[in-house]
């Protein structure tokens, strides 16, 4: 697993500043809606996702407020997350919110079988 992470880090070296922007208003004054962690139990390096402007998720998880992918360096890397701005996060195996998924969690300490497999997320 670690070796795979290292390889991905190398491949992603050209995409250092990319991604992390959820599909929301194109503003730069952002709100953090989620932080993903390389390791289980919210450990190691982090990847922050923001949405444009002063915003938050709604009070239910029956709607989808934002979606995001990951930079190439962070594809198939995350193992846990925390949601912010009232957002619960549902992670997916494939890009574009496809493949296997987990339920919505505000905070999850391990993706279990989806550790190092997550490629996109939905925020609600």
């Amino acid at each position, binding site marked *: 697993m670690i070796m795979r992470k290292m390889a991905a880090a190398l491949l992603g070296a050209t995409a250092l500043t990319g991604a992390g922007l959820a599909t929301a*208003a194109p503003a*730069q004054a952002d709100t953090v809606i989620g932080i993903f962690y390389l390791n289980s139990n919210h450990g190691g390096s982090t990847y922050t996702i923001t949405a444009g402007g002063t915003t938050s998720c709604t009070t239910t998880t029956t709607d989808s407020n934002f979606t995001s992918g990951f930079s190439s360096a*962070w594809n198939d890397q995350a193992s846990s997350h925390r949601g912010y701005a009232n957002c619960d996060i549902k992670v997916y195996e494939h890009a574009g919110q496809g493949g296997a998924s987990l339920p919505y969690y505000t905070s999850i300490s391990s993706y279990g079988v989806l550790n190092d497999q997550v490629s996109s997320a939905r925020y609600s």
Partner: protein
Amino acid sequence: MRARTGVSGVAAVAAILGLAACTGGDGGDEPPELGTVPTVKSSADLPTLPMEQYVFSGDDLRTYTQAGAVLSRRCMERFGMNWISDEDATRDLPDLTVDPTRYFTIIDARTAREHGYGDPGADGGDQQEKTGGSYEPTAAERSVYDGSAKDVTDTAGRRLGEGGCAAESDGQLEKGGVKGIEPLKVGNEFYTLYGEVQRDSRVTEAFEKWSECMKKEGFSYATPLDAANDSEWASGGDTKAAISVATADVACKQRLNTVGTWYAVTEAYQRAYIDEKAEHFADILATKQSLVKNAANVIGGTA
């Protein structure tokens, strides 16, 4: 002979300098030189990493977020609409700085004894109740905020600008900053270094010694990351087994100063990366300072 030697010497020095210039962030062959290696017995012994000065502190983020809410509401009210309050906007803010207790996996003996690899800050459950805000914007309000509303004018008869109130707020907060900088995501830039550091021979040697130490304690892991991410902990990092491994993990790290070496190499790679992209990081710092200053002026009523 002498002259040829001199030329070769210059070429050799140039080659060395060339190599040195390739250190750190771009995967060159020559690893960056280490600074002081701290003795790390607990997370309190960890010095600040170079990246931290570019990341918003908790206070910075609160000021910036509150100012964004003030400016957003100020704009929305001109269109007869409401928006998210300061309290709602700032209720659930993250810490964007490096968590010293978890960045280098587990460090503190007490945490290991009490929580194993579990996160003490997890509040006992993963699926939490959504707290909700006291105010949830309507679809009409969201469309004015993001600029998708058509033919909307404010109380003075002015049309909604491109990008709506979000863009108007941004414009005021970003005065004096550098375009294209995303201050809340600066930490994302350092991810690739995390992997490079783990491949550095000084870290792999430290991990090998740690692995030998763990073997003597009866556990087989190649690196501290393998122990922290053991799939056995997927259903809970605070089991009896996890606590046993975590306790041995921390003891070995303390005995060998594994985290001290890991930190020193990380510090060296981050320093080299920042030096290599000096202009970019100068822009980040200027933008961060400008945003925080503008935000403070908004909250203080002078902007």
